[in-house]
């Protein structure tokens, strides 16, 4: 079942006097419950593409549909709040909140009502190897790997179907990277989540169900 449909999306910007095309009439359909990775050269537009499908930036040409509804129809803020979750290379946690508070914040913002938020939050964090004492600590006092696990737990906490990640293992060592990749794999497999990860790492892409390469503004399936 198609969860995210990209239809004839073109994205360009002015670069010193001439128009630079990043995405060129790009169309693609992402299926539910799959783990996708997007690879490509630096500057090929991977992050731009992720920003567009995350609703962080509006599409100027073409359409993006989430479950048959265009993002314009859903509303970009609503889409970000209710339908997707983002994981970043730099974790992007609210640094003055504890791990559990970061999770609770994400839960409280989604329209899907989650009962016993704190209990669910602790359980989620525990699943990702963050015990109660660490859960109550400020996120700045956690290691990079722990912070990224909190970020993934936050993504999962809002109970969305689509998780987007931009270089989620970029700041992590090899063993933590493997750990994070296995978490993503399990999310797709066990929870039927759709995972789209932008990465440079072949270790990550090798573990995904589908590898997409961004070439000349288009997505090409490699696997």
């Amino acid at each position: 079942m198609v969860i995210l449909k990209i239809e004839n999306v073109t994205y360009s910007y002015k670069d010193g006097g001439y128009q630079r095309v990043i995405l060129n009439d790009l169309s693609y359909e992402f299926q539910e419950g799959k783990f996708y990775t997007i690879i490509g050269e630096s500057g090929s537009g991977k992050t731009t593409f992720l920003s567009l499908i995350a609703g962080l930036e509006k599409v100027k040409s073409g359409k993006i549909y989430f479950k048959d509804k265009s993002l314009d129809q859903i509303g970009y803020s609503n889409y970000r709040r209710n339908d997707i979750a983002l994981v970043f290379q730099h974790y992007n946690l609210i640094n003055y909140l504890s791990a559990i508070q970061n999770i609770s914040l994400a839960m409280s913002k989604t329209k899907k009502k989650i009962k016993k938020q704190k209990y669910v939050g602790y359980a989620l964090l525990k699943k990702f190897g963050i015990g109660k004492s660490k859960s109550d600590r400020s996120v700045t006092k956690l290691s990079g790997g722990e912070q990224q696990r909190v970020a993934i737990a936050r993504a999962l906490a809002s109970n969305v179907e689509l998780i987007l990640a931009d270089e989620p293992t970029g700041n992590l060592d090899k063993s933590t990277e493997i750990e994070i990749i296995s978490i993503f794999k399990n999310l797709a497999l066990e929870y039927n989540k759709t995972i789209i990860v932008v990465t440079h790492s072949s270790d990550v892409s090798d573990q995904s169900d589908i590898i997409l390469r961004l070439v000349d503004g288009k997505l090409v399936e490699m696997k």
Partner: protein
Amino acid sequence: MGILQRVVSSIINKKIKYFLLFIIFFLLGNFLVIGIGINDASKMAVIKSREMLNPIIIFEQVDDSPEDYGIYYDDAIVEIINEIVLDERILVYNKITGMNMVVQNADAVDINVVDENIKQIENGVYISGNNTDSMFEIDDGSYEVVEGRFYTLDEIKNSEKVVLITNQFADLNNLKIGDKLQFKGDNHDELLKYFEDDFDPIIEYEIIGIFNNNQIIENENEDYINYNVMLAPAKSFLDFEDNYRNADLQLASFIYGWKDESSMVKSEDMYDAELPIIKLKDPDDLASFVEDYEEMILPYYTMNYNNELFENYGKPLDIITYFSNLILIAIVVNMILMFTAIIFLYVKMRDNEIGILLSIGIKKIEIMTQIFLEILIIGFLGISLALFSGSLLGNKFGNEIINISVVQNNINEYEDGDMFYNHDKDYFSELTQADVFNNFDFNITKSLAISIYFMIFIIVLISCVIPSILIMIQDPNKILNRKE
């Protein structure tokens, strides 16, 4: 997770930044508290002094009035006076007329009479009449009705013969409510000699009230008439008075051979043209009240409300109020500008956090509210401390200002406090500049503290406007990609 929890966590996390903000709020808050406190103390001193002065208005005949005689019968003036006394700003007014009479079926009180000459006629009493259901003396407690009641508007309208007597008079004669008193004019016996049985007007009143004349208690040796004053509706004895005036006129014609064909002006008409002495409910209404009516009564009368005296004594307070207003405006403007800049910088420094919050779908209005609440809490904490220190500083500072003003103004001090007093009775209370300045009391009251908190709320709100625009135009994609 609620917004308040986020607000508290954010403040705790940014301890140093918010402590600096707290210090700024505290320092500027002191100026605000002092400014508002002095401003309020000056205004209150003006109000209290006005109250001390009694919000009294007295009509005074203009010295070069176009008509010295005859204006009493001007219907237009009577009409204006009748209109003036209906004004809702009036608390009470006295439009007193009176008549010396002799009580027939009782004895006048003659205790504590120092000078026997005062008591010229045996059983002489004084009937004082007003045409409202109260009078100054009732309002200020000089006359205190201890039994029965005061006369009503209906009784005034119907000129009913009802009277209130002093408790000394009642005790002496063993009188009670409902008893009747008979009076004749104080020249009755003299007139009777000439008119014999043709002249014998007697008036009878029913006692409806007994009052304590507290003025007597304060001044034991005051004049005899104070014990024997009686209160009745003004118009209840004017016809009776006319009988005596007519008889007097006839007697004069008989003795001196006058042949005056003109008709005598009736006492009631003269009374209608009498000018009231007015006491307002609110001293603040004095100037506007006078402004509303003075034009109408010129060129015959002016209205004196002791303003010249008050303005002279109150001038330093006006200057203090004026400058404290200026300082207050400067402080508020500076606070707004300073906090706008500070909040703007805070928002700029927190753009990554704003980007993250936006990326997880938090609405911009909620982010603005969070920052507003954080600043407001710090502002309230800062101003709370400033309320204490500002009160102490303001007290000292305010007294210094007053001391300087007293020294500078003593040159203009009026030596004679009675300079602007008017009429036989001192309706205007005494006032000195020391009284005015003693009323200057720097005190941060609960209501003033609430208004200071409200002012901080407004300052923070206004200061958040420009930073809010910055949040409104924030693009989460740009913020997050900048970091990436």
